[in-house]
Every structure is written in C-alpha cells, then in structure tokens.
C-alpha cells in the first residue's frame, strides 16, 4: 500500500536549490523544475553524505564529496563516477499547499 507522507510545504521547494527532508527516516531531497516537483534519495551510495549539499546544475545533483551525478527526475546515476548505484525515486503529489511523497523505488 502506497502511504503518502507530508515532507514539505510547497513554498519551501524552489527552483535551483535542493530541499532536504525526510520520509519515515529515509533522507530525501526535493527539487523543483517549473511546476513540477521531484523527490529522490539523498544519501550518496558511494560514501554516506547528503547529495543535497552538493551542486545542482542541468537537472543533475552532484555529490559534494566525489562528484558522482544523479538525475533529479529519476535518481539515476551518471556512469563513470565514484558511485555506480542509483538512488531511489519517489512519487510526489501536491495537495493543499503541502508536498507528499509515496514509497521510494529504484528507477
């Protein structure tokens, strides 16, 4: 059963910045592109660090430690870096000014 959890208010997620949050103990980050909001896992599979502290550019979040890059829309890792596993991708819905995310899954 997909359980929706409130993780942010919609105003907190702004374009060009990662918004770090949590869903039932799992670190996640929210990203905005226009009207769309995406949620992906926020811990780099290479070393344990939050990706949201890294560099956001061209739809990719770059890990602050070793520059592994992940697609903010899908959580998919870009091959050739230090990390070789994807992070989870979460379903997102916006209701009444709040952002909710469902169960995470690998792309």
């Amino acid at each position: 059963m997909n359980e929706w959890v409130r993780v942010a208010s919609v105003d907190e997620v702004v374009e060009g910045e990662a918004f770090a949050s949590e869903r039932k103990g799992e670190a996640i980050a929210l990203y905005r592109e226009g009207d769309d909001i995406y949620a992906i896992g926020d811990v780099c599979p290479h070393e344990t660090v939050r990706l949201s502290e890294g560099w956001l550019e061209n739809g990719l979040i770059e890990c602050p430690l070793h520059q592994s890059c992940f697609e903010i829309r899908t959580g998919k890792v870009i091959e050739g870096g230090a990390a070789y596993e994807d992070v989870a991708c979460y379903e997102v819905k916006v209701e009444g000014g709040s952002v909710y995310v469902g169960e995470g899954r690998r792309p």
Partner: protein
Amino acid sequence: MPQSKQDKNIERSWPKEGVIRVPAWIYSDPDIYARELETFHYGDTWNYVGLDCEIEPGGYKRSWVGERPVLVTRTEDGEIHVMENRCAHRGAMLCWKNSGKAKDITCPYHHWAYNLGGDLMGLPFLRGAGGKGGMPRDFDKSKHGLTKLRVARRGGSIWATYSDDVPPLDDYLGPEILERLDRLVSRRPLRLVGYSRQIVDSNWKLYWENSRDPYHATLMHPFLSTFGILRTDGDYDSVPLQEGRHEYTFSRYNPELRNSTSEASRQIKSIRSDLEMRDKEVVNSVVDEFQDGMMGAFQVFPTILVQQYFNCLVIRHIILKGPGKHELTWTYFGYADDDEQVRELRLKQSNLVGPAGFVSLEDSEMLALMQPVVESRPDAEQVIEMGGHGTEAQSTMMTENLIRAFYDFYRREMGL
C-alpha cells in the same frame, strides 16, 4: 673534529684489478645508492611486482618498485594495473593493507577517490562549501590521476616499469630466463601458498651477491649439505645471462649421489654424518612434477630470485629501504590444480628456506653482521677470485663467476 662515517676522501674509482675486487664503499655510499635507484629500478628495467594469483578481479595487492610503494590492481574486466601508492594530491600513502578487495581507492587524508585503474574520480568540496572555497573552475580531474607504470605479464608473473625505452619484457628476460620462468609460472594457473617477510639490515647488493654465490651454501648452510640437497660433487651450472644482468644456477637431482658422501663433503667440518632426517619428504623429490629432475634458481635483475627446491616454489623479492637495509618478501606458490599430497608437500618443503628455514645460519643474519663491518672500512676491497678471474659460465659450485659477471654489468651501467 668528528670524522664522518662516509669518508669523502676515499677515491670513488673501481680498483685497477677489475671485477675480481669490489670496493666496499659501494655498500654504504648514499650517492651510489641514489644512482642505483635512478639507473636501475626507476630506469630501463622491468621490476617484478607480484603474481596474478595474489589478486582477484576487483582486488589489489601492495608492492614496491625500488623504494616506491605501488598498488597492483585488477579491474573487474581482468586487466592488471600498476600505479604508485601515493595520492596525487599531497603524496599520502593510499593503502597499507597488503591485499584485499576494493571498489575504489580513497585517500585517508582528504578523501580523494580513484578507481582501480588509477583515475581520479572525485574529491570532496571541489565546488567549495556554502559557495566559498573549492578548486578553481579549470581544475581538470583527468590530469590528476595516480602515477601509472607500464605493465607486462608473462604466465602468472606481473612486471612494471617507469621506462618508455626498456625493451619488451620477453627481450629483457632473454630466452634462458623465459624458459625457466615459463617452467614455473606459465604452464598451469598459479595458486598462492603463503608469504614470509623479513627486514635484512644490509645493503641490497650483499643479498644479490649472496644468491649468486653457491660457494657459501655448502659451508654456511650445513643442513643442505648434510641432507644431500646441495652436492659439492654433483652437476651444477652457474650461468651468467644478458651480459651479467641475470643468471641461473641449476643442479640435476641424482638419487644415487644422495646415498654417498663425497670427499669434498668430508672436508666440510660443519657437515654431520651422524644425523638422519626422520621425515625424508622434506629433502626429497617425492613428486617429480617438472619431469626433468632439475632444481635450482635464477635471478631477474634488479628485483627477484626465483627458486625451486623439489616442490617448494618461491620468489624472493628484494625491496630497497635505504643504503643499509632492504626487505625480503618470500612468495610461496603452487598450482590451482595441486592435489592434497602436493599441497601438503609444498607446505612441508617450504620449511627448507625463508627467515626461519632449515638452511641453518640464514643469509640475512650473516649479512646483518657483515654490513656494519663493511661500512667501517669503505676503503677496503673484497676479493672475488674463487673460480678464477673470468665471468663466463662454469659447471661447479666452487666459483664466484656470477658475482664477477654482475659487477661487470654493474660497472658498465653505473659508469664506475
């Protein structure tokens, strides 16, 4: 005024007698030592770094080229890489575990991370933190990988070089070494048996000469003579190769001779004729796996002595640690398809050699006693005349022809 240990007033020129004399200053002079590293280990040579059976795909082992620590890695596709075990950032040692598996190599100092091919994958805070600091925008990670060495393989053996000019490995080794190396490492997949490691408190050349000196072995290692492994009266070849660079010594195992005592052996007072070995498997060819009745050793300059005593196969790797010190790593190996009996024999016979081997007084003990004495008289000369003055091959143990052949080569390369 205190007198320095290294008396600079000694003339650094080779004795006029040639290679039948070796000047003692070459065993302690730091300038000579530095030149040896540049000329040999970091120059136009192939350095042994390990065996393929020591590293699984996605794994690594530590090794050394000259004094420099290196990593020998094997990527998942099976390819072997050799790179300096030195972070490209500030020079920290990356890895001090002897072997293992790893997804990547991360420096403990600033966490720069490299893949098993030695390429820099990333570094923390490349973009700074909170918008401050970080590397310049034009910092190019692809230019800051680990220093890679050229790699060559022959059978299960792995070699590395800093040189772009050294001949291909097969030419460097030459046909005689290739034949003997292939006999041990190229016919069947290898299996690691184990290691011994010891620090030897002497100049590396004393050890290098020692394994070119069959003369001492009958006398200083009475175990070998007492139990018939070394015979003063058997067939024994001492053959210099590639203008003295490498060499091999081989003897033919003769079970007939083993049961007699030669006149020469009777003259060696350290040999005890009243001793008998209870477990003769240690000193006998129980399984003649090479079907040629041969045993012996060969040196590949400047790093290894490869030795086969019956079923004991071992590579002695000489790792330099300064003018008066080196490390000796003994890698015992066998074959992946060894049966139980042969596995047991290899272990048992490995007791013959190594730092706690049955050889009686061990070479490194003698050399450690010798080094300070040699250092105390850098102006003295060693006498290398056993077996005459020549450098050609001989069929006897009572010769120092291989030492003379080595110094013939050494003088040419070092310009001494």
